[in-house]
């Protein structure tokens, strides 16, 4: 049974159809990448799955349970966590405390929450920065903190929203290693939105491609890279026509 | 039957004056999202202005409106440039407490200058006269004039907001400050203007109301709360909303009258025991609460 089963997910914002009958399934040990041009509806998809937007139609089944109508905090409690592009729990809290917020979801005791948070910081190479404030950190570290915050809730599945944006190649390598560690060593299923192709193609078991709210491709990274529909979505129909001979 | 119609008439007339009071608040909130606790204090200033100008110049109080408008306009702009502008930078709690401080300041300044006693209009063309429009309704001429002038003032402001370039610029700033800035609309100036017009509306309302309501330094708060309720009911930022909601609230304050009517009509003795008069304004607050929970946008609101 897949861990996450999305069936015909549709989300309308007034007259705009952001997600159009998207379906896919994700097994526990898979790492799924979500790519697509800007405005394709990727973040909306995440928001719907995570319970931040009410869906217009469709179903979301997580770990055997229908979570379609659940509010965001209930979804989180069932083990589905997500990162946000810019935000952590609070800019007033230091790094350790931010992760503790998530940890408090599973326990009432401060000491336990703290231990869990320290654990996660260790795994993500953030131990030295435990007492730092977010505004003082470089972008790469901030991205790691957003991941750590979500991991604080001890999730079964993690949705990563563009955690490699704005990083240089060395930092991207680091993020890659962390995601791999989270996936393999911590046993957490991962689904990520990315624009940085090296990351997505390198790390994903499978990739789905969104364009104008619809899923246009679903398969192994190498298949996706060669898929003419995907190329067209990114580069435009005109380019494809003009270069039709060069596409291999 | 008389009571019912009298109450209805009184409620509507009072409501129209209240609409004008609330108009200023809704304009200011619409344009820059700040709740002005000192709103009622400007009303009080308008009332004193009307009273004193009439006495000093020996003219009928109703003719003092332009003076009141000018005073309100200048005072509003001064408040914005000297104080409110800085408040806008801070968190909401600072804004709330800041305007509350302004309220205390103006109230006690008035206390210092005018003393705590009630003052009322005693002379004037319409004072003491009333119209009997049949159905047992007797309307004091001052109230009728006040309502009529309020309507006129309302229409003037509405025209200003919707038919002039400045008015449209104000609306644009209200809807989207950033966008307005990109279009070359000077937001700072719009903010100051909003305060000017907003305060002018309420001082004019004050000059009207003083014709049938005596003034003392403390009456501001009641009208501030009534104005809040009206603006919430009508929808924050909506000019027509303020008008209709004002009348509704005016009618609510006449509930004791309706209650009396029901008491006589239905003759339930227990109804006599309910001290409705004391609850005159309480129902306004209850209405506010209910509206906010049931329909936060208010009747016409577009701003959330």
């Amino acid at each position, binding site marked *: 049974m897949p861990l996450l089963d999305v069936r015909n997910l549709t989300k309308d914002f007034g007259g705009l159809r952001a997600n159009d009958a998207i379906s896919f399934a994700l097994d526990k040990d898979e790492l799924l990448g979500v790519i697509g041009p800007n405005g394709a509806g990727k973040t909306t998809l995440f928001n719907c799955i995570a319970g931040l937007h009410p869906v217009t139609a469709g179903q979301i089944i997580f770990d055997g349970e229908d979570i379609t109508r659940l509010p965001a905090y209930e979804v989180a409690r069932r083990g589905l966590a997500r990162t946000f592009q810019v935000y952590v729990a609070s800019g007033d809290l230091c790094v350790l405390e931010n992760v503790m917020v998530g940890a408090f979801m599973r326990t009432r*005791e401060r000491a336990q929450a703290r231990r869990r948070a320290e654990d996660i910081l260790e795994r993500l190479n953030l131990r030295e920065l435990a007492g730092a404030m977010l505004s003082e950190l470089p972008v790469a570290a901030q991205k790691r903190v957003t991941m750590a915050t979500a991991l604080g809730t001890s999730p079964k599945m993690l949705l990563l929203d563009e955690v490699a944006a704005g990083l240089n190649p060395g930092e991207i390598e680091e993020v890659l290693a962390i995601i791999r560690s989270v996936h393999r060593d911590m046993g957490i299923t991962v689904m990520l939105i990315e624009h940085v192709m090296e990351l997505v193609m390198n790390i994903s078991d499978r990739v789905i491609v969104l364009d104008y709210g619809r899923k246009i491709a679903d398969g192994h990274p190498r298949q996706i890279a060669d898929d003419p529909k995907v190329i067209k979505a990114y580069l435009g129909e005109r380019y494809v026509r003009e270069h039709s001979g060069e596409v291999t | 039957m008389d009571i019912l119609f009298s109450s209805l008439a009184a409620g509507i007339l009072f409501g129209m004056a209240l609409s004008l009071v609330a108009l200023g608040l809704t304009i200011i909130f619409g344009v820059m999202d700040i709740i002005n606790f000192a709103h009622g204090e400007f009303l009080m200033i308008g009332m004193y202005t009307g009273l004193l100008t009439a006495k000093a110049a020996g003219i009928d109080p109703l003719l003092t409106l332009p003076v009141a408008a000018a005073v309100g306009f200048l005072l509003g702009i001064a408040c914005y440039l000297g104080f409110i502008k800085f408040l806008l930078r801070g968190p909401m709690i600072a804004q709330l407490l800041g305007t509350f401080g302004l309220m205390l300041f103006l109230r006690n300044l008035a206390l210092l200058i005018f003393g705590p006693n009630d003052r009322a209009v005693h002379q004037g063309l319409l004072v003491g006269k009333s119209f009997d429009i049949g159905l047992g309704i007797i309307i004091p001429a001052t109230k009728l004039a006040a309502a009529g002038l309020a309507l006129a003032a309302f229409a003037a402001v509405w025209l200003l907001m919707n038919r002039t370039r400045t008015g449209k610029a104000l609306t644009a700033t209200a809807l989207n400050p950033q966008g307005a800035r990109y279009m070359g609309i000077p937001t700072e100036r719009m903010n100051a203007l909003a305060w000017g017009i907003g305060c002018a509306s309420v001082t004019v309302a004050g000059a009207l109301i003083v014709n049938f309501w005596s003034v003392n330094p403390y009456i501001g708060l009641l009208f501030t709360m009534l104005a809040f309720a009206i603006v919430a009911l009508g929808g924050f930022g909506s000019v027509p909303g303020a008008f209709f909601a004002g009348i509704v609230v005016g009618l609510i304050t006449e509930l004791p009258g309706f209650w009396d009517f029901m008491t006589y009509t239905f003759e339930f003795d227990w109804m006599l025991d309910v001290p409705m008069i004391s609850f005159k304004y309480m129902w306004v*607050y209850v209405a506010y609460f209910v509206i906010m929970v049931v329909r936060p946008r208010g009747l016409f609101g577009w701003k959330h």
Partner: protein
Amino acid sequence: MEALKNAFDFSDFPRSDLIIAILVGAAFLIFPLFPHSAFAIATMIQFFIFSLYGMGWNTIGGYGGQVDLGKAQYVGIGAYTTAVMLIRWDIPFWFSMPVGVLFSVSWSFIIGYPLFRLKGHYFAIATIATSLVLKDLFEVWDFVGAARGLEISPIKYAPPDFLRLIFREDVYYYYVIFAFFLLGILYMNWFRKSRLGFQLRAIKDNESVAQSLGINVHWAKIKTYAIATAFVSVVGSFHACYIKNIEPEDTMSLNLSILIALMAMLGGAGSLWGPIIGAGVLIPLKSYLKEWLGASAGLVGIDLIIYAAIIMVISAAEPRGIWGLVEKIRRRRSR
């Protein structure tokens, strides 16, 4: 057990702060033993009272970021419960005070549920509205003495009465409220490190993120509101026994609600010491301004004008309050 340890654990404050706190605390402890005017000790008691009001408010208003301007209604519920129970059925403070808290908290849940669906300005005004409604009701309710209020005549009891909290000298009241004050600080110290405290800070920053971290935002706000209410109600009950003369205009007015919020904001909302500093500045200021300027012939209201001006300046210049200023300076120094 761990909770108690956390309450006493002030280790995340710099040493200098703690030393100052201990010294000030010691000064408070021995203050009544030195010669003092009745005015001074009354002011000190007011200081403790308002510190506690401010601390309570700070939970929902400071840490939670929800500006609540209707706390006075709970002062009233606490005060009236104690007063009525004492006058009619001779029930001592230590029993009537928890009952007052029960009533207050129940009311807070009833209005809290719809109240917290509102945000920002709308919420603030709604809190004012509910407080005014309750005050209006009390003003016509004969059972609680309507607008005249209630009076506890000390002659009927034999002071010093520790059960009913009726004393002839202020010293006793001083130490009782000081004890509450210390308890309040310990509770707040625990609160800011507790699960709910952390949840609130996340909520204050960004509610969507908080939701995604498993926090039931609506419920967290309601719980915190109840805590703030309990604080205020306890002190309200004390107030009844101390002032012995309560009426709606005094005990449940909008002015009081705003004053409470003001204490916390001035001192620094969202910090442990903030409300205490705020009360420490505003209460003596208000009292002494009134003493020196209020009674002067013809200059009625000047004390309030100055007081209002101070509020305006602080709101415009440093909304993070005195403690916020302190922290800002410290951060600059450490660069």
